[in-house]
């Protein structure tokens, strides 16, 4: 395993009775990109503030390069933070904004000029150096904010919702830009975001948070394909994951989940020891993880069709599975969808099984990366 750059150890933050961050432990490797993903109010901004040092944790520890930084003031932690609203100093020119962190570090003027020239070229804001921030657009302001942080050469770069203030077209461009920055500088980067696309496209690893607690911390692939619980499954993916309520059963040596007339086969794997046949469970399967089955496919199952919505190259088919509804994406024009029921087969082992009550993943299967 590579160098651990930043480690959060049982980090906890309480505001009065409210537990904002509930014993979160995360380790981030050097030069890795991590996304803290969760709905608003899940505690991700609080974690960010604690890492930077703007807030002190109630308990737990924050280690950078193995050393606790709890007693180090924010300015000395060598962490860069880019705010969601960029927090550019509006009364200064772009140049003074970029120079601010260097002046604080008492760098000499010629050196400051050199560093600013370097970073402004890197972010292509050279021609805007003598402008005031109120003459710049949102994406340029963001470059200034990133530049102001990068110029101080931080060991860890934190970005709070970096794309949320940009319009759609700008977002794609900035996403490419951020990936380029990461590739060129080899920075350890932490993104805080509520946008799953942003997290999936930018981060090596994703920490999914809800109600202050860490739900899953894994690679982007694993978080998407093998959610640790029902929340993670539902939070990522569009259209969302299908959740099919049913009872666990055994059918000819194969584990299946049945509800009403429908039965879905489960992939092989280790089932939790306290789960037995007849238990109430929820199957989680993504719309794109199901495909139309050939007539002789052994893993196929049949469900009644409720609605068919062609959407250009793909068609979304809504079917029912017992009391639950099921969405599948199939190629447009397939004659199979014209019938009252369709035969489906799950792609490889991407079928998750959750406990109906707690939502915890029950079946340990699959090819994790």
């Amino acid at each position: 395993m590579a160098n651990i750059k930043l480690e959060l150890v049982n980090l906890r933050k309480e505001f009065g009775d409210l537990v904002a961050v509930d014993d979160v432990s995360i380790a981030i490797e050097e030069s890795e990109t991590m996304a803290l993903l969760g709905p608003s109010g899940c505690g991700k901004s609080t974690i960010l503030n604690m890492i930077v040092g703007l807030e002190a944790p109630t308990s737990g520890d924050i280690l950078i390069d193995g050393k606790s930084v709890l007693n180090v003031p924010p300015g000395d932690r060598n962490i860069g933070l880019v705010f969601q609203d960029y927090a550019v100093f509006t009364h200064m020119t772009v140049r003074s904004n970029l120079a601010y962190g260097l002046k604080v570090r008492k760098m000499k003027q010629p050196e400051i000029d050199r560093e600013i020239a370097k970073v402004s070229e890197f972010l292509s804001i050279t021609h805007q150096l003598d402008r005031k921030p109120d003459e710049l657009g949102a994406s340029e302001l963001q470059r200034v904010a990133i530049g102001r942080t990068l110029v101080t050469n931080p060991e860890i770069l934190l970005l709070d919702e970096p794309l949320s203030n940009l319009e759609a077209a700008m977002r794609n461009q900035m996403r490419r830009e951020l990936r380029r920055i990461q590739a060129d500088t080899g920075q350890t980067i932490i993104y805080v975001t509520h946008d799953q696309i942003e997290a999936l496209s930018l981060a090596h690893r994703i920490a999914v948070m809800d109600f202050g607690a860490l739900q899953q911390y894994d690679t982007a692939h694993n978080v998407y394909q093998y959610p640790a619980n029902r929340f993670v499954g539902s939070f990522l993916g569009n259209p969302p994951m299908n959740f099919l309520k049913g009872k666990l059963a055994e059918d000819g040596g194969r584990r299946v989940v049945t509800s009403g007339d429908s039965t879905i086969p489960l992939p092989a794997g280790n089932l939790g020891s306290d789960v037995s046949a007849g238990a109430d469970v929820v199957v989680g399967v993504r719309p794109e993880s199901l495909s139309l089955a050939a007539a002789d496919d052994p893993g196929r199952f049949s469900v009644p069709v409720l609605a068919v919505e062609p959407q250009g190259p793909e068609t979304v088919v809504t079917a029912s599975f017992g009391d639950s509804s099921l969405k599948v994406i199939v190629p447009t024009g397939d004659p199979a969808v014209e019938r009252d029921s369709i035969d489906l087969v799950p792609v490889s082992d991407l079928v998750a099984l959750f406990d109906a009550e707690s939502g915890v993943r029950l079946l340990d299967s699959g090819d994790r990366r």
Partner: protein
Amino acid sequence: MVTNTSTGGASTLGLGKPRRFDPNDKKYIPGLLITPVQILLCVMLIFPFILEFVISMTEWQPIYGDFWLAFTSVFTQKINQGINYNYLVTDEPRYLQALGRTVIMSVISLCLEFVIGLGLASLFLKKFWGKRIWFTALLTPMMIMPVVVGYTWFMLFQYNGPINQIFGWIAFSPVNLQWLNDGTLAFIAVIVTEVWHWTPLFFLIMLSGLNAVPENPIRAATVLGASNVKIFWTIILPNMRAVIIIAFVIRGMEVVKLFDEIYLLTRGGPGTATETISLYLYKLAFEDFRLAYAGSAAFIVLVITVVLINMMLKPIRYQLVEGR
């Protein structure tokens, strides 16, 4: 903005068609609504202003019997081509001294009010015990009538009054400072009264200004490693620039007009040690009845005030007018 310099506006106004007054046209409503105020302004402000300017150019005196006679006599006076102005600026040191004294007193008291007000406002950003009571208490002075403030401090500054008493306790020996009878001490007493009375306004404006400074730039500077002092000078103060300038403008206009308190404390004395421009004008006009001179003196003050206020507003004029 409509530009009618190049075309003379002829084509845009459509002179070909006859234009009639349409009482239902909504574009007349704003004009109609502000007309009463405009008339009031003309009667109460602009006409007296012009009259005052005319008087200041003459040697008019209000000794012509009944009102209409006195009024009409203004316009039969010989215009003396600014002799009053000339006299005031060259041969009346008392006037120039009063002007200078007003400037010194304004600058000292405004700076003190600003520093103390900002300091108190900074304290109020943190939580402390009894904050709400302190807040009310701190605002009280500016709600008291100037006459009451003047008379209260007049009593406090008596040579056998409470202030000498308190100084006596501190010095462990009787203190008998002649606060209101010594030139320098009287000047200090006036400034103390003024600062006590009006620091609350600065405190209030500075507090709202501090609260309006966006939080994230401060946090960003903290993360970049700036100290609290550095953040105060480089982030907080520049962000409060407009608020600070407006506070100075409002108080600057007020402090030039300062009258009641000085009149009650010292009547401009001892000698002319605390005679500010408004006291001088009062004495000139209503004790000596040299109204033409007083008119010229006041007009010079007005011009100076307008120029100064506009200079103070210059850095934020663009921001205020363009709304950015």
